Protein backbone atom coordinates (compact mmCIF):
# COMPACT_ATOMS: atom_id res chain seq x y z
CA UNK A 1 0.00 0.00 0.00
CA UNK A 2 1.17 3.53 -0.68
CA UNK A 3 1.08 6.32 1.89
CA UNK A 4 -2.04 7.63 0.17
CA UNK A 5 -3.77 4.24 0.26
CA UNK A 6 -2.97 3.86 3.95
CA UNK A 7 -4.46 7.28 4.64
CA UNK A 8 -7.62 6.41 2.69
CA UNK A 9 -7.98 3.22 4.70
CA UNK A 10 -7.90 5.17 7.99
CA UNK A 11 -10.33 7.76 6.64
CA UNK A 12 -12.86 5.07 5.72
CA UNK A 13 -12.47 3.46 9.15
CA UNK A 14 -13.26 6.77 10.81
CA UNK A 15 -16.23 7.37 8.49
CA UNK A 16 -18.02 4.58 10.29
CA UNK A 17 -18.19 6.54 13.53
CA UNK A 18 -21.26 8.62 14.28
CA UNK A 19 -19.98 10.82 17.05
CA UNK A 20 -16.86 12.02 18.83
CA UNK A 21 -17.18 9.42 21.55
CA UNK A 22 -16.89 6.49 19.17
CA UNK A 23 -13.99 8.17 17.46
CA UNK A 24 -12.11 8.70 20.70
CA UNK A 25 -13.00 5.25 22.00
CA UNK A 26 -11.31 3.87 18.89
CA UNK A 27 -8.24 6.09 19.34
CA UNK A 28 -8.03 5.06 23.00
CA UNK A 29 -8.23 1.39 21.97
CA UNK A 30 -5.39 1.94 19.49
CA UNK A 31 -3.42 3.58 22.28
CA UNK A 32 -4.07 0.70 24.66
CA UNK A 33 -3.47 -2.12 22.20
CA UNK A 34 -0.20 -1.11 20.73
CA UNK A 35 2.97 -1.43 22.75
CA UNK A 36 4.80 0.69 20.27
CA UNK A 37 8.27 1.02 21.61
CA UNK A 38 10.63 -1.11 23.67
CA UNK A 39 11.05 0.25 27.22
CA UNK A 40 14.84 0.25 26.90
CA UNK A 41 14.64 2.47 23.84
CA UNK A 42 12.66 5.15 25.71
CA UNK A 43 15.62 7.35 26.53
CA UNK A 44 15.62 11.12 26.77
CA UNK A 45 17.62 11.16 23.52
CA UNK A 46 14.56 10.23 21.51
CA UNK A 47 12.07 12.15 23.64
CA UNK A 48 10.05 14.77 21.80
CA UNK A 49 8.84 17.23 24.36
CA UNK A 50 5.32 18.44 23.89
CA UNK A 51 4.11 20.87 26.51
CA UNK A 52 1.62 18.40 27.97
CA UNK A 53 2.28 14.85 26.87
CA UNK A 54 5.61 13.27 26.03
CA UNK A 55 6.31 11.37 22.84
CA UNK A 56 9.24 9.03 22.17
CA UNK A 57 10.17 8.34 18.56
CA UNK A 58 12.64 5.72 17.39
CA UNK A 59 13.61 5.54 13.71
CA UNK A 60 15.61 2.91 11.84
CA UNK A 61 16.88 3.09 8.27
CA UNK A 62 16.96 -0.17 6.34
CA UNK A 63 19.36 -0.94 3.47
CA UNK A 64 16.58 -0.39 0.93
CA UNK A 65 16.27 3.21 2.15
CA UNK A 66 12.96 2.61 3.91
CA UNK A 67 12.39 4.12 7.34
CA UNK A 68 10.93 2.12 10.21
CA UNK A 69 9.34 3.86 13.15
CA UNK A 70 8.34 2.89 16.62
CA UNK A 71 6.90 5.47 18.98
CA UNK A 72 5.12 5.88 22.28
CA UNK A 73 3.52 8.47 24.54
CA UNK A 74 2.60 8.80 28.20
CA UNK A 75 -0.91 10.01 27.26
CA UNK A 76 -3.18 7.39 25.77
CA UNK A 77 -4.97 9.64 23.26
CA UNK A 78 -1.64 10.93 22.00
CA UNK A 79 -0.45 7.33 21.80
CA UNK A 80 -3.47 6.41 19.67
CA UNK A 81 -2.87 9.35 17.36
CA UNK A 82 0.83 8.53 17.18
CA UNK A 83 0.02 4.94 16.22
CA UNK A 84 -2.08 6.21 13.28
CA UNK A 85 0.79 8.32 11.97
CA UNK A 86 3.21 5.41 12.41
CA UNK A 87 0.77 3.14 10.54
CA UNK A 88 0.80 5.53 7.58
CA UNK A 89 4.55 6.13 7.39
CA UNK A 90 6.20 3.01 8.77
CA UNK A 91 8.36 1.09 6.30
CA UNK A 92 7.92 3.64 3.54
CA UNK A 93 10.83 4.96 1.45
CA UNK A 94 12.47 7.97 3.10
CA UNK A 95 12.04 9.90 -0.13
CA UNK A 96 8.24 9.54 0.07
CA UNK A 97 8.03 10.27 3.79
CA UNK A 98 9.95 13.50 3.35
CA UNK A 99 7.32 14.90 1.01
CA UNK A 100 4.20 13.14 2.32
CA UNK A 101 1.07 15.22 2.83
CA UNK A 102 -0.58 13.79 5.94
CA UNK A 103 -4.06 15.04 5.15
CA UNK A 104 -5.83 12.21 6.97
CA UNK A 105 -5.49 13.93 10.37
CA UNK A 106 -7.59 16.77 9.02
CA UNK A 107 -9.97 14.45 7.15
CA UNK A 108 -10.86 12.47 10.27
CA UNK A 109 -11.55 15.68 12.15
CA UNK A 110 -8.55 15.60 14.47
CA UNK A 111 -6.61 18.53 13.06
CA UNK A 112 -7.05 20.33 16.39
CA UNK A 113 -4.44 17.91 17.71
CA UNK A 114 -1.88 19.43 15.38
CA UNK A 115 -2.50 22.98 16.57
CA UNK A 116 0.18 24.55 18.76
CA UNK A 117 -2.28 25.06 21.63
CA UNK A 118 -2.68 21.32 22.07
CA UNK A 119 1.04 20.97 22.49
CA UNK A 120 0.66 17.21 22.67
CA UNK A 121 3.81 16.43 20.78
CA UNK A 122 2.07 15.02 17.72
CA UNK A 123 3.01 17.89 15.43
CA UNK A 124 6.60 17.80 16.71
CA UNK A 125 6.72 14.06 16.12
CA UNK A 126 5.60 14.40 12.50
CA UNK A 127 8.18 17.13 12.03
CA UNK A 128 10.90 14.88 13.49
CA UNK A 129 9.88 12.00 11.19
CA UNK A 130 10.22 14.27 8.19
CA UNK A 131 13.62 15.49 9.37
CA UNK A 132 14.84 11.87 9.57
CA UNK A 133 13.41 11.19 6.13
CA UNK A 134 15.05 14.27 4.65
CA UNK A 135 18.43 13.33 6.10
CA UNK A 136 18.24 9.70 4.91
CA UNK A 137 16.65 10.05 1.50
Amino acid at each position, binding site marked *: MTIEERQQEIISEFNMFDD*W*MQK*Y*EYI*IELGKDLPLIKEELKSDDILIRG*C*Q*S*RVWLHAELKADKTLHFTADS*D*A*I*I*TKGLVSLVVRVLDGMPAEQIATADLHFVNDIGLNAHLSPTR*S*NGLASMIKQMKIYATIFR
Partner: protein
Amino acid sequence: MELTKVINDVEQLRDEFPLLHQEVNGYPLVYLDNAATSQKPFSVVESITNYSLGYNSNIHRGVHHLANLATEAFESTRKKVAAMLHTTDVREIIFTSGTTDSINLVAQSWGRKFLKEGDEIILSMLEHHSNIVPWQMVAEETGAVIRVIPVTPKGEWDMAAVDQLISHKTKLIAVNHVSNALGTINPIEYIIEKAKAVGATTMIDGAQSVVHFDVDVKKLDCDFYAFSAHKLYGPTGVGVLYGKAEVLEKMNPYRGGGEMINTVSFDGTTYNDIPYKFEAGTPNIEGIIAFGAAVDFVNSLDGEWVKQHEQELLAYATEKLKSIDGLKIYGEAENKVSVISFLVDGIHPFDLGTLLDNQGIAVRTGHHCTQPLMNHFGIPGTVRASFAIYNTKEEVDMLYNALVKAIAMLK
Protein backbone atom coordinates in the same frame (compact mmCIF):
# COMPACT_ATOMS: atom_id res chain seq x y z
CA MET B 1 -24.53 49.07 31.83
CA GLU B 2 -25.79 50.62 35.03
CA LEU B 3 -23.17 50.03 37.67
CA THR B 4 -24.71 51.64 40.70
CA LYS B 5 -26.54 48.47 41.66
CA VAL B 6 -24.84 45.82 43.71
CA ILE B 7 -24.68 42.53 41.85
CA ASN B 8 -25.23 39.52 44.06
CA ASP B 9 -27.09 37.11 41.85
CA VAL B 10 -25.40 34.65 39.54
CA GLU B 11 -28.06 34.65 36.80
CA GLN B 12 -28.02 38.43 36.63
CA LEU B 13 -24.26 38.23 36.53
CA ARG B 14 -24.15 35.71 33.66
CA ASP B 15 -26.17 38.15 31.54
CA GLU B 16 -23.21 40.51 31.70
CA PHE B 17 -20.92 37.91 30.08
CA PRO B 18 -22.12 37.17 26.53
CA LEU B 19 -19.31 34.69 25.87
CA LEU B 20 -20.67 32.22 28.39
CA HIS B 21 -23.81 31.66 26.35
CA GLN B 22 -22.53 29.41 23.60
CA GLU B 23 -22.14 25.78 22.64
CA VAL B 24 -18.81 24.01 22.27
CA ASN B 25 -18.70 20.67 20.45
CA GLY B 26 -22.48 20.49 20.72
CA TYR B 27 -22.53 20.99 24.50
CA PRO B 28 -23.20 24.16 26.49
CA LEU B 29 -19.87 25.80 27.31
CA VAL B 30 -18.74 25.32 30.90
CA TYR B 31 -15.84 27.71 31.36
CA LEU B 32 -13.64 26.58 34.23
CA ASP B 33 -10.31 28.07 33.18
CA ASN B 34 -10.74 31.34 35.03
CA ALA B 35 -7.37 31.18 36.75
CA ALA B 36 -5.80 31.37 33.29
CA THR B 37 -7.99 34.24 32.15
CA SER B 38 -11.39 35.51 33.21
CA GLN B 39 -14.13 36.56 30.82
CA LYS B 40 -15.05 40.17 30.13
CA PRO B 41 -18.36 41.79 31.01
CA PHE B 42 -20.17 43.96 28.44
CA SER B 43 -18.96 47.16 30.07
CA VAL B 44 -15.29 46.27 29.51
CA VAL B 45 -15.82 45.43 25.84
CA GLU B 46 -17.92 48.57 25.45
CA SER B 47 -15.11 50.63 26.91
CA ILE B 48 -12.63 49.31 24.31
CA THR B 49 -15.12 50.08 21.53
CA ASN B 50 -15.90 53.56 22.85
CA TYR B 51 -12.24 54.46 22.92
CA SER B 52 -11.49 53.00 19.50
CA LEU B 53 -14.49 54.58 17.81
CA GLY B 54 -14.74 57.79 19.80
CA TYR B 55 -11.45 59.13 21.14
CA ASN B 56 -8.53 56.98 19.98
CA SER B 57 -5.50 59.15 20.60
CA ASN B 58 -2.05 59.07 22.13
CA ILE B 59 -1.86 60.22 25.70
CA HIS B 60 -0.10 62.86 27.82
CA ARG B 61 1.55 65.16 25.30
CA GLY B 62 -1.26 66.07 22.95
CA VAL B 63 -2.94 69.43 23.30
CA HIS B 64 -5.96 68.44 21.27
CA HIS B 65 -9.37 67.40 22.48
CA LEU B 66 -9.08 63.65 21.81
CA ALA B 67 -5.67 63.42 23.47
CA ASN B 68 -7.15 65.06 26.56
CA LEU B 69 -10.06 62.63 26.67
CA ALA B 70 -7.74 59.66 26.28
CA THR B 71 -5.31 60.96 28.91
CA GLU B 72 -8.10 61.59 31.38
CA ALA B 73 -9.58 58.13 30.89
CA PHE B 74 -6.13 56.55 31.12
CA GLU B 75 -5.21 58.36 34.32
CA SER B 76 -8.61 57.69 35.85
CA THR B 77 -7.79 53.97 35.70
CA ARG B 78 -4.67 54.71 37.73
CA LYS B 79 -6.82 56.40 40.38
CA LYS B 80 -9.29 53.51 40.39
CA VAL B 81 -6.53 50.95 40.78
CA ALA B 82 -4.93 52.98 43.58
CA ALA B 83 -8.28 53.09 45.39
CA MET B 84 -8.80 49.38 44.81
CA LEU B 85 -5.44 48.60 46.45
CA HIS B 86 -6.08 51.15 49.23
CA THR B 87 -3.27 53.55 48.49
CA THR B 88 -3.91 57.27 48.29
CA ASP B 89 -0.73 57.91 46.30
CA VAL B 90 -1.48 57.32 42.61
CA ARG B 91 2.26 57.57 41.83
CA GLU B 92 2.60 54.13 43.38
CA ILE B 93 0.66 52.52 40.52
CA ILE B 94 2.76 51.58 37.48
CA PHE B 95 1.14 50.12 34.38
CA THR B 96 2.92 47.17 32.80
CA SER B 97 1.94 44.50 30.28
CA GLY B 98 1.10 41.94 32.96
CA THR B 99 2.26 40.30 36.18
CA THR B 100 5.30 38.80 34.43
CA ASP B 101 6.30 42.22 33.18
CA SER B 102 5.80 43.73 36.65
CA ILE B 103 8.05 41.12 38.27
CA ASN B 104 10.71 41.60 35.59
CA LEU B 105 10.60 45.34 36.23
CA VAL B 106 11.34 44.79 39.93
CA ALA B 107 14.01 42.20 39.15
CA GLN B 108 15.80 44.46 36.68
CA SER B 109 15.31 47.88 38.28
CA TRP B 110 15.42 46.97 41.95
CA GLY B 111 17.30 43.64 41.87
CA ARG B 112 20.24 44.68 39.73
CA LYS B 113 20.77 47.79 41.80
CA PHE B 114 20.37 46.43 45.32
CA LEU B 115 21.30 42.74 45.23
CA LYS B 116 24.92 41.81 45.90
CA GLU B 117 26.91 38.62 45.99
CA GLY B 118 25.77 36.34 48.80
CA ASP B 119 22.45 38.16 49.35
CA GLU B 120 19.56 35.76 49.63
CA ILE B 121 16.34 35.82 47.64
CA ILE B 122 13.56 33.72 49.16
CA LEU B 123 10.98 32.16 46.84
CA SER B 124 8.55 29.32 47.53
CA MET B 125 7.97 25.96 45.88
CA LEU B 126 4.54 27.28 44.87
CA GLU B 127 5.87 29.97 42.54
CA HIS B 128 4.87 30.37 38.92
CA HIS B 129 7.83 30.32 36.51
CA SER B 130 7.27 34.08 36.16
CA ASN B 131 8.29 34.55 39.77
CA ILE B 132 11.28 32.20 39.47
CA VAL B 133 13.06 32.88 36.20
CA PRO B 134 13.43 36.70 36.54
CA TRP B 135 15.14 36.10 39.91
CA GLN B 136 17.39 33.39 38.50
CA MET B 137 18.48 35.84 35.81
CA VAL B 138 19.26 38.53 38.37
CA ALA B 139 20.91 36.06 40.76
CA GLU B 140 23.22 34.91 38.02
CA GLU B 141 24.22 38.47 37.30
CA THR B 142 24.62 39.70 40.88
CA GLY B 143 25.78 36.56 42.67
CA ALA B 144 22.70 36.54 44.90
CA VAL B 145 21.50 33.13 46.09
CA ILE B 146 17.97 31.74 45.78
CA ARG B 147 16.47 29.86 48.72
CA VAL B 148 13.17 28.02 48.40
CA ILE B 149 10.39 27.59 50.96
CA PRO B 150 9.26 23.93 50.80
CA VAL B 151 5.59 22.92 50.90
CA THR B 152 3.69 20.38 52.97
CA PRO B 153 1.74 17.52 51.34
CA LYS B 154 -1.38 19.71 51.62
CA GLY B 155 0.29 22.36 49.49
CA GLU B 156 0.93 24.92 52.22
CA TRP B 157 4.22 26.60 53.10
CA ASP B 158 6.29 24.69 55.62
CA MET B 159 6.17 27.40 58.30
CA ALA B 160 9.07 26.02 60.32
CA ALA B 161 11.19 26.30 57.19
CA VAL B 162 9.96 29.87 56.64
CA ASP B 163 11.26 30.83 60.08
CA GLN B 164 14.53 29.05 59.42
CA LEU B 165 15.16 30.49 55.97
CA ILE B 166 14.69 34.14 56.85
CA SER B 167 17.86 35.66 58.25
CA HIS B 168 19.98 38.78 58.14
CA LYS B 169 21.19 37.56 54.74
CA THR B 170 17.66 37.78 53.30
CA LYS B 171 17.42 40.77 50.98
CA LEU B 172 14.23 39.92 49.11
CA ILE B 173 11.20 37.73 49.61
CA ALA B 174 9.21 37.18 46.40
CA VAL B 175 6.17 34.94 46.83
CA ASN B 176 2.68 34.60 45.47
CA HIS B 177 -0.36 35.55 47.50
CA VAL B 178 -2.35 32.67 46.01
CA SER B 179 -0.90 29.61 44.26
CA ASN B 180 -2.05 29.37 40.64
CA ALA B 181 -1.60 25.60 40.53
CA LEU B 182 -3.20 24.65 43.85
CA GLY B 183 -5.26 27.63 45.00
CA THR B 184 -3.51 27.90 48.38
CA ILE B 185 -3.86 31.32 50.03
CA ASN B 186 -0.45 31.95 51.56
CA PRO B 187 0.07 33.71 54.91
CA ILE B 188 1.84 36.67 53.33
CA GLU B 189 1.03 38.92 56.31
CA TYR B 190 3.29 36.70 58.40
CA ILE B 191 6.14 36.62 55.93
CA ILE B 192 6.01 40.39 55.32
CA GLU B 193 6.32 40.96 59.08
CA LYS B 194 9.28 38.57 59.18
CA ALA B 195 10.86 40.33 56.21
CA LYS B 196 10.55 43.73 57.83
CA ALA B 197 12.19 42.44 60.98
CA VAL B 198 15.36 41.65 58.99
CA GLY B 199 15.09 44.64 56.67
CA ALA B 200 14.24 42.57 53.57
CA THR B 201 12.19 43.85 50.64
CA THR B 202 8.93 42.07 49.76
CA MET B 203 7.49 41.42 46.33
CA ILE B 204 4.04 39.80 46.23
CA ASP B 205 2.76 38.12 43.07
CA GLY B 206 -0.98 38.81 43.29
CA ALA B 207 -1.98 37.43 39.89
CA GLN B 208 -4.35 34.90 41.45
CA SER B 209 -5.59 36.87 44.44
CA VAL B 210 -7.17 40.18 43.44
CA VAL B 211 -10.08 38.49 41.66
CA HIS B 212 -11.05 36.60 44.80
CA PHE B 213 -10.73 39.09 47.65
CA ASP B 214 -9.92 42.65 48.62
CA VAL B 215 -6.20 43.47 48.84
CA ASP B 216 -4.99 46.33 51.02
CA VAL B 217 -1.35 47.01 50.22
CA LYS B 218 -1.03 49.52 53.04
CA LYS B 219 -2.27 47.10 55.64
CA LEU B 220 -0.04 44.37 54.19
CA ASP B 221 2.84 46.86 54.11
CA CYS B 222 4.60 44.99 51.27
CA ASP B 223 7.07 46.86 49.06
CA PHE B 224 5.71 45.55 45.74
CA TYR B 225 2.45 43.94 44.65
CA ALA B 226 1.84 42.77 41.07
CA PHE B 227 -1.18 41.51 39.15
CA SER B 228 -2.75 41.29 35.67
CA ALA B 229 -5.94 42.88 34.35
CA HIS B 230 -7.01 39.85 32.32
CA LYS B 231 -7.50 37.71 35.40
CA LEU B 232 -9.75 40.43 36.82
CA TYR B 233 -12.37 40.72 34.02
CA GLY B 234 -10.13 43.13 32.10
CA PRO B 235 -8.20 42.88 28.83
CA THR B 236 -4.94 41.04 28.18
CA GLY B 237 -1.71 42.99 27.87
CA VAL B 238 -2.30 45.13 30.96
CA GLY B 239 -0.68 44.66 34.33
CA VAL B 240 -0.08 46.62 37.49
CA LEU B 241 2.92 47.03 39.68
CA TYR B 242 2.26 48.67 43.01
CA GLY B 243 5.42 49.88 44.67
CA LYS B 244 5.99 52.00 47.75
CA ALA B 245 6.86 55.50 46.53
CA GLU B 246 10.06 55.70 48.57
CA VAL B 247 11.25 52.38 47.13
CA LEU B 248 10.31 53.27 43.54
CA GLU B 249 12.12 56.58 43.83
CA LYS B 250 15.40 54.82 44.63
CA MET B 251 15.15 52.57 41.57
CA ASN B 252 16.50 53.30 38.10
CA PRO B 253 14.34 52.67 35.05
CA TYR B 254 15.44 49.67 32.99
CA ARG B 255 13.66 50.61 29.80
CA GLY B 256 14.41 53.84 28.03
CA GLY B 257 12.20 55.69 25.63
CA GLY B 258 9.44 58.24 25.45
CA GLU B 259 7.38 59.37 28.46
CA MET B 260 9.97 58.16 30.97
CA ILE B 261 12.28 61.13 30.43
CA ASN B 262 12.40 64.69 31.63
CA THR B 263 15.00 66.12 29.28
CA VAL B 264 17.12 64.36 26.70
CA SER B 265 20.38 65.57 25.25
CA PHE B 266 23.42 63.74 23.95
CA ASP B 267 25.29 64.93 27.03
CA GLY B 268 22.84 63.21 29.31
CA THR B 269 19.23 62.52 30.09
CA THR B 270 17.16 63.16 33.18
CA TYR B 271 14.32 60.87 34.08
CA ASN B 272 10.70 61.69 34.69
CA ASP B 273 9.16 61.18 38.14
CA ILE B 274 7.43 58.03 39.31
CA PRO B 275 5.34 56.34 37.98
CA TYR B 276 6.20 57.64 34.50
CA LYS B 277 9.89 56.84 34.61
CA PHE B 278 8.91 53.16 34.51
CA GLU B 279 6.42 53.54 31.66
CA ALA B 280 8.58 53.95 28.58
CA GLY B 281 6.87 54.02 25.20
CA THR B 282 3.22 54.26 24.25
CA PRO B 283 1.32 52.03 26.65
CA ASN B 284 -1.67 49.78 25.95
CA ILE B 285 -4.01 52.79 26.13
CA GLU B 286 -7.25 51.08 25.19
CA GLY B 287 -6.46 48.15 27.45
CA ILE B 288 -5.73 50.35 30.44
CA ILE B 289 -8.86 52.44 29.85
CA ALA B 290 -10.94 49.24 29.59
CA PHE B 291 -9.28 47.98 32.74
CA GLY B 292 -10.85 50.99 34.47
CA ALA B 293 -14.24 49.63 33.42
CA ALA B 294 -13.23 46.24 34.84
CA VAL B 295 -12.40 47.86 38.20
CA ASP B 296 -15.81 49.58 38.10
CA PHE B 297 -17.35 46.18 37.49
CA VAL B 298 -15.51 44.71 40.49
CA ASN B 299 -16.74 47.63 42.58
CA SER B 300 -20.31 46.84 41.53
CA LEU B 301 -20.03 43.38 43.07
CA ASP B 302 -20.97 42.57 46.62
CA GLY B 303 -17.62 41.38 47.98
CA GLU B 304 -19.14 39.24 50.70
CA TRP B 305 -21.39 37.55 48.18
CA VAL B 306 -18.41 36.88 45.88
CA LYS B 307 -16.52 35.16 48.68
CA GLN B 308 -19.52 33.13 49.77
CA HIS B 309 -20.48 32.10 46.24
CA GLU B 310 -16.95 31.04 45.30
CA GLN B 311 -16.42 29.15 48.55
CA GLU B 312 -19.75 27.36 48.07
CA LEU B 313 -18.71 26.31 44.57
CA LEU B 314 -15.34 25.15 45.90
CA ALA B 315 -16.88 23.10 48.70
CA TYR B 316 -19.51 21.58 46.43
CA ALA B 317 -17.04 20.72 43.67
CA THR B 318 -14.50 19.32 46.15
CA GLU B 319 -17.12 17.02 47.63
CA LYS B 320 -18.39 15.89 44.20
CA LEU B 321 -14.94 15.24 42.76
CA LYS B 322 -13.72 13.43 45.87
CA SER B 323 -16.55 10.93 45.45
CA ILE B 324 -14.95 9.76 42.18
CA ASP B 325 -12.95 6.58 42.64
CA GLY B 326 -9.21 7.10 42.18
CA LEU B 327 -9.42 10.90 42.00
CA LYS B 328 -6.85 12.76 44.05
CA ILE B 329 -6.98 16.49 44.73
CA TYR B 330 -3.64 18.32 44.84
CA GLY B 331 -3.76 21.29 47.19
CA GLU B 332 -5.89 20.82 50.27
CA ALA B 333 -4.86 23.91 52.14
CA GLU B 334 -6.95 25.23 55.00
CA ASN B 335 -7.31 28.53 53.14
CA LYS B 336 -7.77 28.28 49.41
CA VAL B 337 -9.53 30.04 46.58
CA SER B 338 -11.97 28.38 44.17
CA VAL B 339 -9.36 26.30 42.33
CA ILE B 340 -9.22 22.51 42.25
CA SER B 341 -6.22 20.69 40.84
CA PHE B 342 -6.62 16.94 40.48
CA LEU B 343 -5.49 13.71 38.87
CA VAL B 344 -7.16 10.34 38.39
CA ASP B 345 -5.18 7.17 39.03
CA GLY B 346 -3.52 5.84 35.89
CA ILE B 347 -4.87 8.59 33.62
CA HIS B 348 -2.77 11.31 32.01
CA PRO B 349 -4.16 14.83 32.56
CA PHE B 350 -3.95 15.54 28.83
CA ASP B 351 -6.34 12.66 28.09
CA LEU B 352 -8.86 13.91 30.65
CA GLY B 353 -8.62 17.47 29.34
CA THR B 354 -9.19 16.32 25.76
CA LEU B 355 -12.29 14.33 26.63
CA LEU B 356 -13.66 17.13 28.84
CA ASP B 357 -13.18 19.59 25.98
CA ASN B 358 -15.19 17.31 23.73
CA GLN B 359 -18.03 17.73 26.22
CA GLY B 360 -17.82 21.52 26.29
CA ILE B 361 -15.85 21.76 29.53
CA ALA B 362 -12.90 24.17 29.49
CA VAL B 363 -10.27 23.25 32.06
CA ARG B 364 -6.51 23.61 32.08
CA THR B 365 -4.19 20.62 31.99
CA GLY B 366 -0.43 20.46 32.34
CA HIS B 367 2.18 21.80 34.72
CA HIS B 368 0.58 25.28 35.02
CA CYS B 369 4.03 26.86 34.66
CA THR B 370 4.99 25.41 38.04
CA GLN B 371 7.39 22.63 37.06
CA PRO B 372 9.31 22.66 40.38
CA LEU B 373 6.02 22.08 42.24
CA MET B 374 4.91 19.30 39.87
CA ASN B 375 8.32 17.64 40.18
CA HIS B 376 8.03 17.93 43.96
CA PHE B 377 4.75 16.00 43.83
CA GLY B 378 6.26 13.62 41.25
CA ILE B 379 3.50 14.21 38.68
CA PRO B 380 3.55 15.40 35.05
CA GLY B 381 0.84 17.95 35.74
CA THR B 382 -2.76 18.14 36.86
CA VAL B 383 -6.21 18.96 35.57
CA ARG B 384 -7.20 22.31 37.02
CA ALA B 385 -10.78 23.56 37.31
CA SER B 386 -10.94 27.18 38.45
CA PHE B 387 -14.29 28.75 39.31
CA ALA B 388 -15.35 32.36 38.94
CA ILE B 389 -18.28 34.38 40.20
CA TYR B 390 -20.34 33.50 37.12
CA ASN B 391 -20.03 29.73 37.55
CA THR B 392 -22.89 27.71 38.99
CA LYS B 393 -23.51 24.47 40.87
CA GLU B 394 -25.16 23.11 37.72
CA GLU B 395 -21.84 23.61 35.97
CA VAL B 396 -20.09 21.68 38.73
CA ASP B 397 -22.57 18.85 38.06
CA MET B 398 -21.75 19.05 34.35
CA LEU B 399 -18.05 18.82 35.13
CA TYR B 400 -18.70 15.82 37.36
CA ASN B 401 -20.79 14.00 34.74
CA ALA B 402 -18.31 14.72 31.94
CA LEU B 403 -15.48 13.53 34.14
CA VAL B 404 -17.22 10.26 34.99
CA LYS B 405 -17.82 9.66 31.29
CA ALA B 406 -14.21 10.48 30.37
CA ILE B 407 -12.82 8.19 33.07
CA ALA B 408 -15.06 5.33 31.90
CA MET B 409 -13.71 5.77 28.37
CA LEU B 410 -10.09 5.86 29.49
CA LYS B 411 -10.09 3.03 32.01
